[in-house]
């Protein structure tokens, strides 16, 4: 069976590879901004890979390119070895801000994708969506409009809308940003449950180390502009994880490793600021 391994690969799950991706933004009246330079990364099939980096380091640009909303100036994006050309339903993105359509009920939002794809019947789609909604405790809210839900509930509904598509890769761009701490922790647990049950390939983007550590199989640390992946850290904390994991020795070790890498980045920013102040000082004189 070992040499037959290739055929065993579950092709419903995807492996996301970015090779030497460079993206430069040119806006009239401003110096060209290199958001990503020669950025390479791999999100292995069925893994929960977390990309962590300081804000403004090009994380969202990377997410947009992976999802196909934006195109790299050079470099390649591959899903299961095939190049990505645009947005498609094999890569579903969950955004920073809620993108549930406010004019559709939770259920209508959730079955929109399958209805568009048309490969399963409406009843089947609803059944599938219902199972997911149940998992995140929203079954009673299926006929409510998004505005009637709390922020955390909206995020959960959005996870369902994405998961119901069985995407090859799910890209989550700081999805829990702006939620209060308790809701956030709850959401992380929901996400882990959903990850355990579906085993989907997930690329989760965040600027919070604790969130990254709690969720990840693997953490990719991103450098500042121009962004590129600097360090990879394997998170070998046992699953299922709960808050107890936060007090283990291994957690502290990995956290220190990630923070060292990140602080080097932070220090670079401060160094830049210092230089800027020096410049300002000279001008004043």
């Amino acid at each position, binding site marked *: 069976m070992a040499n037959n391994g290739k055929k065993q690969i579950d092709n419903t799950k995807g492996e996301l590879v970015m090779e030497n991706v460079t993206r430069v933004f040119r806006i009239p009246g401003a110096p060209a901004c290199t958001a990503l330079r020669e950025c390479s990364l791999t999100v292995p099939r069925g893994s929960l890979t977390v990309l962590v980096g300081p804000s403004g380091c090009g994380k969202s640009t990377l997410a947009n390119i992976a*999802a*196909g*909303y934006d195109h790299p100036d050079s470099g390649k994006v591959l899903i299961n070895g095939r190049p990505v050309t645009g*947005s*498609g*339903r094999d*890569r*579903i*993105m969950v*955004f920073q*801000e*809620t*993108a*549930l*359509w*406010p*004019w*559709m009920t939770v259920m209508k939002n959730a079955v*929109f*994708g399958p209805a*568009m*794809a048309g490969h399963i019947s409406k009843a089947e789609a609803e059944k599938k969506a219902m199972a997911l909604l149940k998992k995140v405790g929203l079954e009673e809210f299926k006929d409510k*409009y*998004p*505005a*009637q839900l709390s922020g955390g509930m909206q995020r959960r509904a959005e996870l369902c*809308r994405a998961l119901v*598509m069985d995407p090859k890769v799910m890209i989550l761009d700081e999805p829990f940003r702006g939620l209060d701490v308790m809701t956030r922790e709850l959401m992380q647990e929901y996400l882990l449950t959903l990850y355990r049950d579906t085993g989907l390939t997930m690329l989760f983007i965040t600027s919070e180390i604790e969130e990254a550590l709690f969720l990840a199989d693997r953490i990719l640390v991103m450098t500042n502009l121009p962004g590129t992946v600097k360090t990879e850290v394997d998170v070998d904390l046992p699953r299922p994880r709960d808050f107890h994991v936060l007090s283990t020795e291994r957690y502290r070790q990995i956290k220190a490793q990630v923070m060292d890498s990140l602080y080097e980045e932070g220090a670079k920013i401060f160094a830049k600021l210092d230089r800027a102040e020096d410049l300002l000082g000279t001008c004043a004189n």
Partner: protein
Amino acid sequence: MNPYIVLGLLLAVVLAVGAWQQKKKALLFEVSWGHQVRKTLTSKGFLLQLAGFITFVLLWELTVKTLSLPWFSRLPGPWECLMEWLSPDPDYGISIYTQDYYTHIIYSTYRATTAFVLATALGVPLGLLMGWSRKFYDYSFPLVELIRPIPPLAWVPLAILVLPGDEPAVIFVTFLVAFFVTALNTLLGVESIDESYFRAARCLGASKRRLLFDVVLPGAMPFIFTGLQISMGAAWFSLVAGEMIAAQYGLGFLIWDSYSLIQYPVIVIGMVTLGIIGWVSSAVVRSIGRKLMAWRERELYGNA
């Protein structure tokens, strides 16, 4: 029938409607009817609204009748107008008892409605198309922006020249203003839709056509209905202007004609009638909008 009796009946109707609304509110907040009525009658909002009306009527009476100020002395007073309006035998031939009064109302309403419906039927699709397709936007927007600032009355001569008879000309002029308001508000509505709604739809595999019906149209709906309310108002004011120039019936004609014939109370009757019809038509548009946008209503009132 005696005008005083009619006045009493009208007041009774207003009071009955008010009482009914209060009853609904009392049921909603689970308080007694009497309590709710007392609360409303003594509420600051209601008292201020009442004060506003009374101040207006008193100022009118004061300037026109009591003091009879130089420029105002030729105007009719509020009571005079009210009695003329309710009189079975009006001095100037227009009151709620005369056939002519309703003929004018029906003509004006018919024209405004026709223009409004046409403007909506053409303006909403135009706005949606401009917002949905970049190509169509480039193609049509500069033209729309060039034609839009032309005041409606400037179109009257051409409209009369080209269209058969005065009637289509008046409707055309009315339509034009409402059309541009509707189209532009619809376009603004599409542009106001959050980009993430489009992205979400695209990654879930929505076709361009589904995008139009499931994202663009509902997303633009709040702006469309704001536009429709403005266009309803715009339709009425350009209609009256059109009627003053080229019509034999209608409230605009009535007002202008009464001016020529020195029948001043009729001017006021025409104006107040326009005010009431305009208000009712806006309320109708608003309530249709509310029905269509239940998702938004609940946003405002919390968990309904």
